[in-house]
């Protein structure tokens, strides 16, 4: 009986602590898309964007070109930097699993300025609570020629 009591107490004490730990081995799926409006009758999506077509269809453009797609494992003990284009870099820390099953994610998209020497400023800085596998869209990152850079993220945490 005493052993049961100790086990229950340990579980009760350890649960919130473990739930707040960094979700190790988290994987960030990333789609980088260049969106333009070319007055098409029907939106056009590059191959490789099938998984996010539904998300893109809600945006006010008609042409979506794939710039990059990939999975990135977030470093458990540090900062992950992913160069999106020559201008933009994604910077993020591993997400933290919360007790309600969501993932707390802090990410920054840094833009290289045209200054000499160039500086990096935060084009976007955000902290959010995401459900695993739910998509996050970041848009409004302007490119030359009226193009818009659209980033789509999905965060997955491997089962323990």
């Amino acid at each position, binding site marked *: 009986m005493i052993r049961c009591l100790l086990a229950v107490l340990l579980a009760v004490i350890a649960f919130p602590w473990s739930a707040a730990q960094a979700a190790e081995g988290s994987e960030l799926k990333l789609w980088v898309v260049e969106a333009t409006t070319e007055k098409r009758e029907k939106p056009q999506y590059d191959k490789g964007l099938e998984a996010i077509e539904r998300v893109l269809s809600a945006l006010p453009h008609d042409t979506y070109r794939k710039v990059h797609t990939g999975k990135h494992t977030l470093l458990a003990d540090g900062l992950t930097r992913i160069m999106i284009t020559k201008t933009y870099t994604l910077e993020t820390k591993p997400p933290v699993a919360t007790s309600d099953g969501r993932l707390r994610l802090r990410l920054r998209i840094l833009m290289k300025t045209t200054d000499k020497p160039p500086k990096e400023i935060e084009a976007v800085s955000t902290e959010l609570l995401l459900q695993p596998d739910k998509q996050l869209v*970041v848009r409004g990152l302007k490119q030359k020629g009226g193009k818009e850079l659209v980033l789509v993220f999905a965060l997955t945490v491997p089962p323990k």
Partner: protein
Amino acid sequence: MIMNTCKWTQKVEAYTDGESHDHSAVEAHIADCALCARHRATMLHMRSALGALPEAPSLSDGQFPAFMEGIHEGVSHSRKRPGGIWALMSLSAAALVIAIATFSMFTGPGPVKANEVESVSTQLEGGTAHWDISDDGVTTIWISIAEDDF
């Protein structure tokens, strides 16, 4: 065992028990009757075997009141269970387990909350950060900035 059908059997048994009054006649019969001789030998053997058993303990008259007093005390004052802190901890553990089980049964796993944007900002000159979460759970963050500023 062979059954002794001789009519002298009872006399032989009385003789063996020391209750016979006609010793010489019985002894003469035993000397002539093989059945009665064997019956007597069997009786003597059984008697010696019973005599070898330990005697059952018995209470003397002086011991009897103390014996009864012990029985009365055992009946009126039953043995105390282990108490103190161990009993308290056992009860606490049982209560805790029941409480947790009940809580788990009635609450169950809570619904996973929707996405939530805690903060969003931009350092782009003239830029404004916005966010929105659609009904199907897709979170969109967008930066609005004048074309000319880029």
